[in-house]
């Protein structure tokens, strides 16, 4: 009769939504692996000068004595050049580290800027409706149906390749999916009671969009922005591969692959395609996996995993 008092009370821990999300995310082994890879990649990119100091090899210096064979061919991975050298005798490892910076900077920057534009356009189109919506939606349709790699070629041919132009081109052609998704969500949200309540309290359209609607869109925005990163990275690598992105001799993964492809030198030096190729593949794969994991962790109610209907296939 008295043991009621002796049992320990059940402790109810209140967990915030961030903590719950993190718990769900970390319980998914694939997402954790992807996250770990991305963190390692960031450390690798940030530590590029350290790697340069440690190996004693500059990313653009040509080591014609040690880095090329007597025949003038690149040397494979060895004690001095851990990942081998390229056709000019440059250290592939050091170039890979500096190239990772380009990929990450372009990927994150372009996705961030494109998300900003996409969210703004989607919010305005969905909330204001009418003519504004029609014009904005047709613009989205238009940008989506333009052959963007070809237009990027035309732009670069006139203005010359540069990092800024690459980012601008990527942003210009990738904000549309976000705008579509946000618009759809806003249209269903703007009829809801909490928006009407806010409006009846005298809130203006700007404050309703920013304070009432925007926080409800955080899940799709985070997920789509994450998934936009790998497409931007591939877009940049494609531009550099075609010689229209980062200007040589500055290292970028796409440029390294372009160097490998020219004269088909990679056929005798497999590391020239496998090293940057696998780095690129693993990076895009990790970001895509993380995006999927985030979607599941942020929105556990969604039974069916829906993917964005992005025109990812067009970069071919």
């Amino acid at each position, binding site marked *: 009769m008295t043991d009621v008092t002796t049992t320990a009370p059940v402790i109810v821990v209140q967990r915030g939504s961030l903590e719950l999300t993190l718990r769900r995310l970390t319980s998914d082994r694939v997402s954790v692996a992807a996250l770990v890879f991305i963190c390692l990649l960031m450390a690798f990119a940030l530590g590029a000068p350290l790697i340069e100091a440690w190996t004693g090899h500059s990313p653009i210096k040509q080591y014609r004595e040690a880095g090329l064979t007597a025949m003038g061919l690149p040397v494979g991975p060895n004690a001095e050049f851990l990942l081998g050298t390229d056709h000019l005798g440059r250290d592939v490892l050091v170039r890979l580290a500096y190239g990772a910076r380009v990929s990450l900077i372009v990927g994150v920057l372009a996705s961030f800027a494109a998300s900003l534009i996409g969210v703004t356009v989607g919010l305005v189109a969905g909330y204001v409706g009418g003519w504004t919506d029609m014009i904005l939606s*047709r613009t989205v349709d238009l940008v989506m149906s333009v052959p963007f790699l070809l237009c990027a070629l035309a732009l670069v041919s006139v203005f010359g390749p540069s990092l800024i132009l690459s980012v601008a081109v990527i942003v210009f052609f990738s904000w549309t999916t976000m705008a579509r998704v946000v618009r759809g969500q806003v249209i269903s949200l703007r009829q809801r009671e909490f928006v009407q309540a806010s409006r009846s309290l005298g809130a203006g359209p700007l404050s309703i969009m920013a304070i009432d609607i925007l926080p409800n869109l955080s899940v799709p925005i985070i997920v789509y922005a994450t998934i936009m990163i790998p497409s931007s990275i591939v877009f940049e690598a494609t531009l550099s591969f075609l010689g229209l992105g980062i200007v040589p001799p500055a290292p970028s993964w796409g440029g390294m692959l372009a160097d490998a492809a020219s004269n*088909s030198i990679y056929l005798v030096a497999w590391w020239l395609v496998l090293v940057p190729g696998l780095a690129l593949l693993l990076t895009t794969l990790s970001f895509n996996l993380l995006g999927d994991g985030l979607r599941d962790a942020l929105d556990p109610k969604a039974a069916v995993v829906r993917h964005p209907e992005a025109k990812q296939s067009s970069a071919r």
Partner: protein
Amino acid sequence: MISFIASRAAFAGFLLLTLSSFVFILFFVAPGDPARMIAGERATEAQLVQLRSNLGLDRPIPEQYVKFLGRAIQGDLGFSYRNQQPVIMLIANRMPATLSLVLGAMVLWLMIGIPIGIVSAISPGGIKDRLGQSFILIGLSFPTFVLGMMALYFLYFLPRQAGFTLFPPGGYKPFLADPWLWAWHLALPWMTLALVTAAVYARLTRGQMLEVMGEDYIRTARAKGLPEWKVTLRHGLRSTLTPLLTQLGADVATLLGGAIVIEQVFGLQGVGALAVQAVQSQDRPIIIGVVLLAGAFIVVTNIIVDALYVLLDPRIR
């Protein structure tokens, strides 16, 4: 129905107008004097003035634009700076390679992508679905040129070193000369393009199938005793046709304007390779021609896709 056609036609016109203004502005307003590019560095000022008046470059910009549009509609895309050949001929010469590449790959990616999507969707969460989703994820993550270079290394170079030629390294052989040689040379580009694109179609098919397989009409179809494969194919897959068609139209249209990356990797002398070469040699009329042609492809494919919509979806009629 009429408003549907009208809105689609308006969009097509708008798209062509935007693309043509885009290239026109790039061509005529951007830095660089076209007359100087045609005449070369050593041309005298008098020659340049003469050339500008011959080309109509001394006219007001709006007038130039209208003339440029008028010529483009008649198929006159100007002449290459490099060898003075008509741009339309240069592009026409490259079309067979691009057409062969895209249409062949299209058949392959539909044959790979749709079945994977179906199999994945009929047992969600199962081992087949996991395999299917892995295929989708890897396919979506693989940069086309990386897959192409790896295919060349493993399927052309390594067998070659071992002493036999499994696949050729690239290049285009005309279909009419030798269909077998044509297909053999295109096999690797086809596979590369098809594998990365199939992932998109598998994902689309899977998502759409998952959505409809819970619908009432599917239950009705099962209840009336249809075998499961008939339910899946005739009722389930039927609903995926419209989104698949939309995606297919967009992909084929874009690729016909130049499968730039694939052509570059495999040394196919298609429209995309022509555009890349034109960029490298600053041959702007060719770039303009290819962009306009791509726009025309997009518009034509849109018309075909819209016509097929009307056939497939009675609600539009």
